[in-house]
């Protein structure tokens, strides 16, 4: 009997199975995103489908209105969870993209604020409090075949690149109207373009896309522990066909990449001697390390351990807060410590498996060689290349590392904690030198987002200064605090929710059996076995 006919015949069972399917394919949890406009004081914060863009100095709030598609009015710029939020390097546009399989480019014109104020002071523009609202229109839109997972711009801002969960990095040309032209009324239907294909990792989630400062290379990181540096050709729409090198060394998925370039200071007309090699590539990973690479040769220059692996092999759960990815079956810890020395002789088969201990059964549970630990979620490099901010999943403190260009080393400079920001998720350095952070409770249904700002003092030490930078009104626009979520988290939420989808899922015995029970062929096998049993008994 076919699936459709069976569903009609057994509606309750079908509904139950559909419920189970939905629970399993719930999709990734919403992330909190942060982007700062490079040449002005605008900040964009997003959680799920909610996006707030505010100029924190003037208090002007920008709304992103998408022209209605196919006659449907849209109140949110995106229908699905946002995964990518990024300003172009020249600050002219904002790239957003997410689970609704579309990437949009919004024209970030600061002048529109003034024009709208001048033209229509009565149209909701409250000039008295120094606040206004302005509209950013969508300049380009692309239809991506899969959900987006990462995005980037080329150094000159002429191309936008987006990557998806299947390993493809697509590229689209940024076509903005020239600055200063009169903003024309937007056509009703913005045509969704098809992006070109730039390069591809094979069937793996691409987690980061970064263009090198010299503009010749593109670094992409993926879930399969690799960081790849490709050569960006002069015609990127034709595709990137040459790989410069692979930066291999991480023991677990790579979650973020960023380039760091030393500041070129010209003191007294003399240009500061640039350290040998110029820019370096930084990457953060699920094995808890932040590594520095020479992107031209692929050599690892330095490694900083941001989070140590969980104590004691075969160790059990830590406090009630940890759950999910950290509570691996005890056998996995032992395996993790074994060095992979090319033992590929059917590792699932008997002889090798017995050597590794019988606790884990037949198949090795984790492919990564590192013992499970909190992963590095995000990193950001300051404009002068001297400081790197690192966010570790599950911790409230952001680690600030100083990058020593002479010795090519990363050392811990400070651990910074904001009093009102919990579970930071992403950091960014602003054009004014401030350090911004967004965070919030990592629940699958979370709607809250906390924002924090810190500034660097004369000694190089960072101190939180959120209240001085953000007025109450601006803060209320950006943030969303939901009290129940904090309570829910305290009860026992999953600490490592964000990185769960980047690790290979681990099923314990009962879950594996349940999954197997959903398969049809097993039922058939059982039916035939029962039938044969009956036939044998009848024959006796």
């Amino acid at each position, binding site marked *: 009997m076919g699936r459709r006919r069976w569903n009609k015949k057994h509606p309750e069972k079908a509904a139950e199975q559909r419920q189970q399917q939905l629970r399993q394919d719930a999709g990734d949890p919403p992330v909190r995103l942060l982007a700062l406009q490079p040449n002005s004081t605008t900040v964009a914060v997003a959680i799920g489908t909610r996006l707030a863009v505010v100029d924190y100095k003037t208090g002007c709030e920008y709304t992103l209105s998408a022209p209605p598609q196919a006659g449907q009015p849209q109140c949110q710029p995106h229908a699905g969870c946002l995964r990518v939020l990024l300003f172009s390097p020249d600050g002219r546009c904002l790239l957003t993209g997410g689970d609704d399989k579309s990437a949009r480019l919004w024209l970030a014109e600061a002048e529109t604020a003034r024009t709208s104020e001048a033209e229509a002071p009565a149209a909701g523009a409250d000039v008295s409090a120094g606040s206004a609202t302005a509209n950013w229109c969508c300049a380009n839109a692309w239809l991506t075949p899969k959900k987006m997972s990462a995005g980037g711009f080329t150094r000159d801002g002429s191309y936008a690149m987006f990557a998806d969960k*299947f*390993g*493809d990095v697509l590229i689209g040309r940024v076509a903005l109207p020239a600055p200063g032209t009169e903003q024309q009324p937007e056509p009703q239907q913005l045509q969704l373009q098809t992006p070109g*294909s730039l*390069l*591809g*990792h*094979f*069937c*793996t989630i691409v987690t980061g896309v970064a263009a090198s400062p010299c503009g010749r290379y593109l670094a992409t990181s993926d879930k*399969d*522990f*690799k960081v*790849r540096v*490709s050569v960006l*050709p002069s015609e990127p729409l*034709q*595709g*990137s*066909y*040459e*790989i410069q*090198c*692979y930066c*291999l*060394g*991480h*023991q677990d998925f790579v979650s973020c990449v960023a380039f760091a370039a030393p500041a070129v200071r010209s003191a007294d007309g003399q240009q500061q001697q640039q350290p040998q090699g110029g820019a370096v590539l930084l990457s953060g990973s699920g094995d808890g390390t932040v590594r520095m690479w020479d992107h031209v040769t692929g050599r690892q220059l330095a490694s900083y351990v941001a989070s140590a692996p969980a104590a004691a092999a075969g160790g059990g759960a830590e406090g009630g807060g940890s759950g999910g990815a950290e509570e691996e079956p005890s056998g996995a810890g032992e395996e993790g410590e074994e060095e*992979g*020395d*090319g*033992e*590929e*002789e*059917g*590792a*699932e*088969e008997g002889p090798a498996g017995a050597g590794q201990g019988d606790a884990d059964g037949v*198949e*090795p*549970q*984790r*492919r990564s*060689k590192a013992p499970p630990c909190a992963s590095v979620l995000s990193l950001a490099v300051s404009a002068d290349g001297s400081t790197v901010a690192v966010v570790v999943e599950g911790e409230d403190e952001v680690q600030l590392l100083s990058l020593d260009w002479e010795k090519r080393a990363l050392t811990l400079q400070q651990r910074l904690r904001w009093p009102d920001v919990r579970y930071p998720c992403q950091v960014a350095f602003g054009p004014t030198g401030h350090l911004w952070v967004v965070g919030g409770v990592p629940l699958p249904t979370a709607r809250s987002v906390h924002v924090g700002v810190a500034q660097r003092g004369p000694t190089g030490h960072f101190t939180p200064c959120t209240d001085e930078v953000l007025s109450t009104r601006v803060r209320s626009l950006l943030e969303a605090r939901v009290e129940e979520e904090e309570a829910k988290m305290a009860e026992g939420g999953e600490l490592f929710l964000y990185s769960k989808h980047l690790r*290979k899922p681990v099923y314990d015995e009962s879950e594996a059996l349940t999954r197997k029970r959903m398969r049809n062929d097993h039922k058939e096998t059982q039916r035939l076995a029962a039938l044969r049993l009956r036939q044998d008994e009848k024959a006796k």
Partner: protein
Amino acid sequence: MSPKREREDGGNGEKPQHKKKEEVAHPRKRFYRARAHSNPLNDASFDVPTRPEDFDWTDHFPEFLQEWRERQQQQQPEAAAAPASGDAADGSSTAAPASTSAPSSSSSPSEQPLVRFVDIGCGFGGLLVKLSTIYPDTLMLGMEIRDKVSEYVRERIAALRREQPGSYRNASVMRTNAMKYLPNYFHKGQLTKMFFLFPDPHFKAANHRRRIINTHLLTEYAHLLAPGGWLYTISDVPELGEWMRSKLESHPLFERVSEEELAADPAAGLLALSSEEGQKVARNGGATFRNVYRRLAAPRQLQQQQQQEQEKQE
């Protein structure tokens, strides 16, 4: 069934005596049969080295590397290359020509010999075995994703190494997903030949991304192949042959090898008939479509090619 029973009973002495089951030295293929398709997109748990430098090839080529190390030690105290026939543990006849020609092989005296030929999806190992005798100084590796089949090839090579000491030391097999993990095993520009014999056609359009020759993977293969290295493909499915040709043709780092060069190349002649799959195709009287391309040192201009094709059509 009955003729076989008679043979096993050792019936009339006319038929030759078959060996007892335990004494058959070669692996019997029927115990290693597996279904033809294994999903390469599976996120399986292969034990993969983090970097090519971290991988120890001694398990795969023990005698070859042992000989090489002994040659290194001999060469260091003495300036001239010793005959090394005294070091060769077994089979001096085959070892001597190998050792005298080895110092002139591609690897420089101080570098450890590296794998140069790779057979992606080597199946039951037919091509590897033939290539191993034609190129005795080159290390070659077969990669197969199916567990049983790679076990079969391993047993086959072990049996051949025992039967003919000194030969087949340069071939080995590995069970891994070549579409994902090639950069973990090989350095940039390490390989000189890559073979893709009768790859899975994946007819459905939704599965085209699993085809082993597609634009993104060609970029990876170009990264691993040394400039001037050759990439061999052959298929019996016309649509797949056309697909592979068009993908290779539209990649700026690959250039088609002319038929004259192919005729002179020993490996190209083996493509159609050496592997078990190829023999099956020949038995069924199918046609094969061979596409061999060379990796260029610098990208070629694609627009000119497209213009030429358009002109040809007009």
